[in-house]
């Protein structure tokens, strides 16, 4: 313990060593990191079981006490999970990515524009529109599945990706609400300077708003990605041909009617998670920088 150094470093009489900054930082870091390590173990523990189950024969999954290290590890489960010719997972993965990219691009572009309008501009009818926007989140969607299906069916969009992608290009209430909240935190002074330089609205959005909103844009990308990744119902409803299915639909096929091959389901789930984990790992870096710029006093 660096007690002596700490005591010597006491700047004022009333500050004891345990109140000193360095000791405080040390305690703080110990507390923070022990909590982080403990909680991340709690959060990750089920995933360990998931991987474990993916490496076991079916009948061993629910044995007690569990085999904490599978021996022998059945790596062949991973091959078996993806061997079914009826379930072409690489194709499902490609399909999912097409939808993800089409949908996220649309949502980002449209929502930035729409949210800027709601956050910054004054116009008659604005509050009514925003109230309607919030209200659209409140009607349970189960009762609009059928009317929506009829609508898209009449438009000839069934069995295409259009019902999954196109609506995103017209904004999404949750993302608009969230983005609007963040945009309103950006000091107007920055824009005013740009206006003086002769920038138009689109230029202001592109040059000032977007760079300053990286954390919230990252949140929206991550959450939108998850929306599609975990959506089972919409693709099931609108897509008819197996070759158009998404990864989640493919996973649902493991849940057989009379028997579920748990180990294969787990193996497939683990593999399907990996790309998303990697994507998240990179996307979350947007939190590091970004808003540091906004510490500007008005």
């Amino acid at each position, binding site marked *: 313990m660096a007690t002596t150094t700490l005591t010597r470093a006491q700047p004022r009489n009333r500050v004891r060593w345990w109140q000193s900054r360095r000791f405080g930082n040390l305690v703080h870091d110990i507390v923070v990191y022990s909590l982080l390590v403990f909680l991340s173990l709690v*959060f990750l523990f089920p995933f360990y079981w998931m991987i474990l189950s993916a490496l076991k024969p079916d009948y061993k999954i629910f044995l007690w006490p569990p085999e904490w290290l599978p021996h022998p590890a059945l790596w062949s489960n991973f091959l078996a999970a993806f061997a079914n010719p009826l379930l072409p997972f690489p194709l499902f993965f490609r399909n999912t990515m097409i939808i993800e990219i089409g949908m996220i691009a649309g949502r980002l572009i449209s929502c930035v524009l729409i949210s800027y309008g709601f956050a910054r501009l004054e116009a008659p009818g604005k509050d009514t529109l925003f109230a309607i926007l919030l209200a659209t989140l409140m009607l349970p969607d189960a009762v609009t599945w059928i009317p929506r299906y009829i609508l898209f069916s009449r438009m000839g969009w069934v069995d295409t990706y259009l019902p999954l992608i196109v609506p995103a290009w017209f904004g999404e209430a949750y993302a608009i*609400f969230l983005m609007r909240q963040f945009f309103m935190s950006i000091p107007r002074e920055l824009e005013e300077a740009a206006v003086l330089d002769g920038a138009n609205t689109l230029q202001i959005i592109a040059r000032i708003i977007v760079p300053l909103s990286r954390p919230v844009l990252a*949140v929206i990308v991550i959450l939108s990605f998850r929306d599609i990744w975990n959506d089972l119902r919409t693709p099931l409803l609108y897509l008819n041909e197996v070759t158009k299915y998404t990864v989640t639909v493919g996973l649902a096929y493991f849940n057989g009617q009379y028997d579920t091959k748990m180990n294969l*389901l787990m193996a497939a789930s683990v593999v399907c*998670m990996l790309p998303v984990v990697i994507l998240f790992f990179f996307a979350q870096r947007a939190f590091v920088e970004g808003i540091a710029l906004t510490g500007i006093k008005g």
Partner: protein
Amino acid sequence: MATAILPKPPARRSRKARHDTIVFYLCVAPWVIGFIAFTLGPMLYSLYISFTEWGMLKPPVWVGMANYTRAFQDPDFYISLKVTSFFTVFSIPVSLLTALFLAILLNEATRGVGFFRTAFYMPAIVASVAAAVLWTWILNPKYGPVNGLLRVFGLPGPNWFSDPKYVIWGFIMMSAWNVGGQMLIFLAGLKGIPKALYEAAEIDGGGRWPRFWKITLPMLSSTLFFNFVMAVIGSFQTFDIAYVISTARSGTLGGPAKATLFYMIYIYSLAFKGFNSMGYATALAWILFIIILILTLIVLRTSSLWVYYESEKEG
């Protein structure tokens, strides 16, 4: 905030105001068009359906207010309201506090943050089919880790998913595990608090704890507010959690003994499993719409009491 402070635009509007109006409508045009094209029609159609008897296979038959009056005599309507409210009242504080706590911890850390962020977000990524299987194991009455832990403390573990008294607590635990989205939003909010405020506090000699109460929490209250509003709206529409668990366990939707008969589960089973009851299901959905609307209103109206506005303080 400007919108609140500025008076309503006067009758004689300036060029700037006209310009702003035009730009505003250009900006929000995609949403207005999308709303009219994809949402308004289905919403109005569902409103019409709520006054009919409809099985989706034949044209709907007008029944007037019958579906709405039926709800108030339907014991399952009250059960589903009770289940949903109970879940909402407990799951919102539990999951919001978990998310907030994780976000603050992550914000305090300096090294390996990426790893920890990913760890806490992982539950949000796992396919719901697999998550449901995971939870049937975690809460397995004999062989699950939760009851294993309870046994260590000499407590008898309940039979989670088939005990009507405990099943909802199992769901609350699940919702606390899956808070990645809310956590990220808190994190983005924390990143938005200007360092200058903390620096100023440090000069004043404030400790970590006072700093948290005096700066972090007030500055975060608007993020908390966003998450809270969305949680209220979302929680009343809880569906997936109960649906995937009952699918994974091949159990009764809403069971055991109606203990997980969430409002949306009831609507779903009426709409798609029932006979000719899409109209009634839709009426229930509109009743829920009104309930959520009123609750959101209450939250919005009371927000000034607990949401900190820097602009108001500074006048």
